[in-house]
Each structure stands twice: as C-alpha cells, then as structure tokens.
C-alpha cells in the first residue's frame, strides 16, 4: 500500500496544473469553447511541447506513462479548469493503438501534437453497450470499406485520423467480430455532423458510407474495453478535479453570501448538506483511486472497479452539481459564475461512457461472473 504519487507523476501534475491555472483561466476556456473549432490548437501544441501527451501512453508506445495514476494526474488537472481540449479521444485512440502495437510513426505525430486522433465507437442506438456495434466492415478485395454511424464522437472534426470500430462478423451484441480501423479525415464517403456541446467544446456524428479504411485489429473487443476503461479512469479523475473546485467555490460562497444578517454558511441545514457533499466527494475520490489502481490488473477486477467508479462518479457528480447550484441560489443559475459550467460538465460526464444505471447493472453482471 502506498498512497503517495511517484515523483514523476507529481511533476507531471504540477507542470500541467501550473500551465492550466495560468494560461487557461475560465474566460479563455469560454473563448475556446465557443470558437468554431471548439478547442485550441495553440494550447495543444504547447501542452505537447511540455510533454503532457506522453503521459497518456506507455514507454513502449513512445510515451512515459499510460498507467491509471498517470491518466489520473493529467485529467484531475484538466477537470480543475474544465478544459475542452481533445484529451479524452486522444487517450482512448492512442491507448488502443499502443495496445495493438505498431503505428510508431502515427503515434509519434500524435504525441508531438502534429496529428490528431479521435475514438469513434459509440453508435446512435448502442447506449453505452460496448458490443452493440452495427457499423459494418467489408473487405472488397483491395481494402476495408466501412458503413455506419458513430454517435457524439468527441472532437471528431479536429481529427486527422479516426479510430473506428466496426463489425467484421457476428451480430450486434457479440464480443467477437468487432474490428478496429483507422479512417482518414478526408476519406471518401466520410461526413461529419459537428455541433457544440452543452458543457463546452464540440463533438460530432460520424457518417461513413463505403468509406475505405485500414484494419488495425480484427479482434478489437478487448482493446476497446481496455481503452474505454482508461477513458473511464480519465473521466473519473476529471470529475474529481471538478468536484474539488466546485466544493471550494461553494464553500467560499457560503462563507461570504449573507442573508438574514449572517453568512448563509452559518445555517446548520446547509452545513450538514455540505458535509454530505464533502463525504461523497471523498468516496468518489476513493472510487477513482480504485479504478486507476485496477487499470493494469486482471480483467474482471479491472472492469468491476471501472464500473464501480463510473457509477460512483455519476451519483456523486449529480449530487455535487445540483447542490452547488442550489446552495449558490440564483447565482448558481447564471452563465456568469464559473460554478454553473463546472456543474454542467460534471453532469455531462454522466453521459459519457456509461451512466449510473448502466454501470451498476454491469457491476452486478461482472459479479455473477466471479
């Protein structure tokens, strides 16, 4: 047992944190978020230069991290400033490629920030079920041709290459027969319906009609599951970062806002609710620690910890977001106060990679397998 982060990770977190606190204040964040691109290539390049992207993948893939607690260190900092940069898609796509092996050149470009990846797995009707894949892949004798739609792909408009899952064989719901393919952004038959997100940044629906692609893994399911697990570790720690900032902002408001002649933080009913909020945040942090710790482990244990964490983060996240708004009174409802944007992002994390109910049911199912 050891709860101290390694020196390397502390340094990574510090470097990133210092950069973001200084260069990515909430006004800048809003500007970037509402820009046409919905992210900032300039910041991305600088973060790549700082070496942050290398923390996302293991040494064997050209990085220096890739373990649960590396991902944790990075995303906690991103959460603290509700950054809208394309970290999540990059993490999942790069991790998948790293697990598969090869693709050194592309990975090199990605880690230096000169090429962008997106991770396109979820489909309009799959509702978080990783096996519910309808996009089809057919080998036409020369190359693999993909047809189908991928839903709400984070920052897909920004990508030079999209890692796409598609069904090579079997039917919806099978773990076998799901392949992974690289598709170029400018490939024929590819179109994107891009849009802004309610919590900032952009995503898009990816439409593929007979789009040529490169097969990177024919038995892709275990890779997808692992990449999604890493994505959930990332989201959990992003949520922990957001919750810590939200808690501090709410406490500050409770200490300064006066009603009935006293700071509202003197009202015991609010105090006890804040105590519950604080307690749930600590429980969520523990869940996120468990998930990060399990990412490297045995599959069932990993997936149980992952689902437990996403469930916990979902439950705690909603509570923290709703209580933060409520305890801020009308002010929590305004665009002007950062806390509302932290609350929105926290809520929407519940809509990425599986919600509370999904992961609770999954936790139960994995338990039966034990």
């Amino acid at each position, binding site marked *: 047992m050891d709860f101290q982060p390694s020196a390397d990770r502390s340094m990574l977190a510090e470097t990133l944190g210092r950069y973001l606190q200084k260069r990515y204040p909430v006004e800048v964040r809003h500007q970037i978020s509402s820009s046409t691109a919905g992210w900032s290539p300039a910041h991305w390049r600088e973060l790549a230069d700082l070496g942050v992207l290398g923390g996302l993948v293991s040494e064997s893939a050209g990085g220096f991290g890739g373990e649960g607690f590396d991902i944790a260190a990075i995303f906690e900092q991103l959460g603290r400033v509700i950054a809208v940069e394309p970290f999540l898609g990059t993490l999942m796509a790069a991790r998948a490629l790293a697990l598969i092996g090869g693709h050194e050149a592309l990975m090199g470009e990605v880690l230096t920030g000169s090429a962008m990846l997106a991770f396109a797995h*979820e489909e*309009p*009707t799959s*509702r*978080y*079920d990783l096996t*519910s894949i309808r996009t089809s892949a057919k080998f036409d004798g020369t190359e693999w041709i993909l047809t189908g739609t991928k*839903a*709400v792909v984070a920052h897909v408009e920004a990508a030079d290459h999209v890692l796409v899952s598609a069904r090579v064989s079997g039917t*919806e*719901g099978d773990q076998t027969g799901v392949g992974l393919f690289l598709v170029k952004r400018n490939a024929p038959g590819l179109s994107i*319906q891009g*849009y*802004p*997100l*309610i*919590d900032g940044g952009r*995503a898009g*629906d990816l439409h593929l009609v007979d789009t040529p692609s490169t097969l990177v893994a024919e038995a892709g399911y275990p890779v997808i599951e692992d990449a999604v697990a890493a994505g959930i570790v990332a989201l959990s720690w992003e949520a922990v970062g957001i919750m810590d900032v939200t808690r501090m902002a709410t406490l500050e408001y409770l200490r300064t806002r*006066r*009603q*009935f002649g006293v700071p509202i933080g003197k*009202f015991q*009913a*609010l105090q006890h609710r804040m105590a519950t909020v604080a307690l749930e945040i600590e429980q969520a942090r523990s869940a996120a620690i468990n998930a990060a710790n399990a990412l490297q482990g045995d599959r069932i244990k990993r997936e149980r910890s992952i689902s437990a964490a996403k469930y916990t983060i979902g439950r705690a996240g*909603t509570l923290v977001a*709703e209580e933060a*708004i*409520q305890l801020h*009174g*009308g002010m*929590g*409802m*305004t*665009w*002007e106060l950062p806390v*509302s*944007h932290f*609350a*929105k992002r926290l*809520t*929407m994390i*519940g*809509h*990425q990679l599986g*919600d509370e*109910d999904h992961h*609770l*049911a999954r936790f139960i199912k994995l338990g039966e397998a034990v």
Partner: protein
Amino acid sequence: MDLDFTMEEEQFRAEVRAFLKAKLPARIADKVRTGKRLTKKDHEEWHAILHERGWLASHWPPEYGGPGWTTAQAHIFDEEVSLAYAPRVVPFGVSMLGPVLIKFGSSAQKKHWLPRILDGSDWWCQGYSEPGAGSDLASLKMSAVRQGSHYLVNGQKTWTTLAQYADMIFCLVRTSTEGKKQAGISFLLIDMKSPGVEVRPIITLEGEHEVNEVFFTNVRVPVENLVGEENMGWTYAKYLLTYERTSEARVGAATAALSFLKQIAQTEQKGGRPLAEDPLFAARIARVEIDLENMKTTNLRVLAGSGSSAAPLELSAMLKIRGTEIRQELASLARIALGPYAQPFVSEALDEDYQGAPIGPDYAAGIAAHYFNERKLSIFAGSNEVQREIITKVSLEL
C-alpha cells in the same frame, strides 16, 4: 370521501378538451412539448385565445372577468391545458397581480388595470428579489420616497422574468426604514417605459435570456400606483406568495412531462429493447409517477380543504417542495434517457425557423438545457429551504 369527479365535472373536462382541440395552435403545442423557445408573440396569441373564450383568469371572481369555476373545474382545466401542451399563461399579471388588486386594490386600480391584464394591453413582470435580498426577501432596499403626487424610486431588482417584454412591473419597495424590516415595505406599480428604468439581461447557465436585472434611477411613479396602504406591502406580498406556492404544485405540467418521458423511454433503446423495460429505469419512472399520483391527491386535499385557493400554509409549502422535486426529477430522467445525445446543444435548434437536421432523436434538442433550467424550480418562488423553514415554524412549531 370520494376522489372521483362528478358527471358534470367530466362533462366540463370534455368541453375543455374540445376547446383545446379547436383553438390551441398545433405549432405552439409542438414547441411546448419538445421544449422549443416560445416567442413573445406565441404567448400573446395564446393569451388572446383564452381571453376570447373567457377562460384566461380561472381564479378571478366572475365580476372581474373570471369564469366562475369551482375548485374542481379549475383543477380540471389546469390538467387538460397542460396535457395538451398549451403554454403556461405568463403568471405575473393574471395569477399574481390580479388577485392582489382584486383583494387589496382601489376601485380605480381594479377598473383600470384588470381589464388591461385580461386583454393583454399590459405585459407585467414581478419586482421582488434584489441582489442582497433573496431568501431574505424582507431585507429589500429599493426605496420609494414620497414627493407630493409621486414617489421617487431608486434601487435594483433582479431575477425579473421576461422583463425584456414587460410594459409594467409591480414592485416591493421600501417606504420606511423604521421598525421591523417587514414593516416599511410598500407595493408599487411602475411603468417600464418611465425614464430611469433600465433592463439588463442575465444569461442563465444553459445560455438563455429569460431573467433580468432591472435598475431604477430617480424613477417617478404616480402615487395612485400605490396598491393598498403605504408600508403594508408585506401583507400583500405574503398573500401573493402563498398563491404562488400553491400553483407551484403544477400537477398538470408534471403529468404532461411524465407522459413525454414515457414516450421517450419507449423510443430509446437499451440492449435491443425499449429503455422503458429496463428494470432500473422503469423503477425510476414508477417512483416519480407514484410521487406524482400522491401529490395530485395532496393538491386536491388543499383545494378541497380550503374551499377556495387559500391553502393551509403547511401543505402549500409541501406542494412547492414536492412539486418542484417531481418536475426536476422528470427533467432529470428525460436527460438520462437520452444517453450520449444529451450532450449536443445547438441553441438555434430551439427556434421555430431552424432548418438544420436534428442531432440524434428529434425530441432531443432542448432536453438537457431544460434540465439545467429547471434547477431554478427549487430556488425561486421561495426556495425549498425557505419552504422547510415555513413548515418548521408554522406547523411543526419548532
């Protein structure tokens, strides 16, 4: 005891339904159902349709233009109107100021203002909250100093809903700083076009402009715009607040939202079957449905128990709490039901003339924004914490 409606009441329900079928514009109902933006014109159109039928001011006595309904009829009307996805009548004139004027206004005020509320000549807004006086409403500071035939008004109101459309605002103002803070408050009607009135938008977290700050700088208000007596405004405000709370049960709106949620849950898929069949999601819907069924009866108890709309304070506070919790839960479940498609948000897609393709299911566009917007329900109209204080003090006597 009998919870069922009489034959006559059921006949009335049929009449309301026929009216709604004939007169409620489908364009407007569709906007309400799918959470699209209503324009000022939409509101005015529906207001005029109801007025024409004489069904606008359901709680006003007939002599002032109310339909003379029984409690049960008013309840049935509320339910049917909501189920048909009619817009809620903007309440500030009809439901708030109207009852206050009827109870406390002078004959001249009633004669002048009430018809103008009914025919839509004046769009009213409500000037209660101030930046430093939220839950502690009585600590308000906006001042009105009598100078001959007018008051000179200075100060600020906030969270003023749809002030950007309003012709008139009714305000609580401080006319005295002596005695208890509740004692020096007056109830004043102010023309929004008066020199010195400035409206500044507040953008809410989902990006909408619905509420405003209103600034008053040396605004002159004729003394005949004082309602009732000077320094007695708190009494009128409390009367209005009780009124507001009871209506916050919003049983009809909740029933409509539940019905919409069930449609979504039938359409959304989970593991190849409708989401509605997922045991955990079905349980979430059933819990809120039962809560709503229970609240419907609590609401009827309030209505029947009083014989009029002045409900016992405790139950009306409970209705505000549970009513807003239920509508927030329904908004939350609709958001959850959407899965990943809760994330996209194209603000223009909520406008009538939007031409873009829908993102995800066609009902998705406004749902997450609606969820965030509905967080206000537990904050406004006397926050749910303030309601708990009322229950504590008034009924539990703690």
